[in-house]
């Protein structure tokens, strides 16, 4: 059977059939794998929150090792005692709070009078209450985000940062231990006033011994990413001020 493959009608029919076949294969595959992909995303969030809280599998001095995916749900239940959603000054308990998409909330709040739902996780570490809040901002190339763990005086007990596309070796270093560990012990409040924490150049404190200057030594060559970290810390943690005021 000789078909004239150069005819226009043949070309059109060929393209339609090809698109239909390929489309159904991909649709089938995507919906088949969706539960696993979703589970992976959920585990990742739980791992990140636990990491900020200080629950991890780190062994060496430079490791950033999460709790393994096999028991992350157990650990999450064990360490995170309560999950809240803060919306317009109201506090609602919600054990699915960690699934809130910060990016979507941010966009919704931008247009109109929508009050952002702010997830907040209360955990127990070494017998003390620790409050973990999510943050999200802009780096040099794309989004950066993370979690900050605070005690009730808003002193940092741990952080976790991640990024979508910062420069490897420069901005991407924000997810390295030596940078994240610097934040531990820094304070968001100066007395009663909200100061935030700044990633600063030339603050003459490379080992970060001064814990009350609200400053972290910047990463060389990553000014914009560092500024992005400062900005997201300042802006996003501030939204939880009303909650922290009720604690003291």
């Amino acid at each position: 059977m000789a078909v004239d493959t150069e005819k226009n009608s043949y070309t059109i029919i060929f393209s339609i059939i090809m698109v239909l076949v390929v489309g159904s294969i991909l649709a089938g595959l995507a919906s088949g794998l969706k539960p696993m992909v979703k589970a992976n995303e959920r585990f990742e969030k739980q791992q990140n929150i636990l990491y900020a809280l200080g629950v991890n599998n780190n062994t060496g001095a430079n490791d950033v090792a999460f709790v393994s995916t096999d028991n992350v749900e157990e650990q999450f239940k064990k360490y995170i005692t309560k999950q809240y959603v803060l919306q317009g000054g109201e506090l609602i308990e919600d054990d699915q709070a960690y699934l809130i998409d910060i990016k979507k909330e941010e966009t919704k709040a931008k247009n109109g009078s929508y009050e952002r739902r702010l997830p907040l996780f209360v955990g127990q570490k070494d017998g003390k209450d620790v409050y973990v809040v999510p943050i999200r901002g802009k780096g040099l190339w794309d989004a950066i985000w993370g979690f900050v763990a605070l005690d009730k005086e808003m002193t940092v007990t741990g952080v976790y940062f991640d990024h979508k596309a910062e420069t490897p070796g420069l901005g991407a270093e924000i997810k390295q231990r030596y940078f994240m560990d610097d934040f531990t012990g820094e304070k968001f409040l100066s007395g009663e006033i909200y100061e935030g924490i700044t990633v600063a150049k030339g603050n003459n404190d490379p080992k970060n011994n001064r814990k009350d200057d609200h400053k972290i030594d910047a990463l060389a060559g990553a000014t914009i990413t560092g500024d992005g970290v400062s900005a997201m810390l300042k802006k996003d943690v501030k939204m939880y001020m009303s909650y922290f005021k009720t604690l003291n």
Partner: protein
Amino acid sequence: MGLLSKKDGKLISDPLLDNNPITIQVLGICSALAITAQLKPSIVMAVSVIFVMGVGNVVISLMRNIIPSKIRIIAQLIVVATLVIIVDQVLKAFAYSLSKELSVFIGLIITNCIIMGRFEAFALANGPWRSFLDGIGNALGYGLILVVVGFFRELLGSGTLFGFKVMGDPVEKTGLFALGYENNGFMVLPPMALIVVGIIIWIQRSRNKALIED
């Protein structure tokens, strides 16, 4: 070679050395620069490309008589894109942290010139078995360079292989670092991949004079 005839065997061995897609044809350089800072992503990229090229070449070869030549490039693109999305989805489901690490580079397989080049030059004119061998051969040749570059860049740039500290710990100054050895931070940056590839090309051409172009 009992399994492959001499001619078929050459389809695999040629692109590994004397007709290597990266060092001789200078194709697929962009991804070679981007993902070879460490060994693990290099290997995953190589494996993904082997899959996409092997299957893609066979699919194109099977369809070679029914693809209208007017839209053959689009048809090729659809085949690559489909296979790449399959790889991406499977990685997301079964190797999540790895897929995060490779992020956009998996998507960039679509733009890898080697793949479209082999579809156009080989699979459209040859049977499925030979096309399969050609695809695997070229992908292996590509992967080989990736792994070699990844090996040297991770070893000299970070002092690790697969994340293991083979040179000692740079912070605690153990192993080689105790003797004053330092990591070469430049190795981690993309330009160094170009230089490493350049060195490989140099070595290869100085050993086989037939490859030198006038």
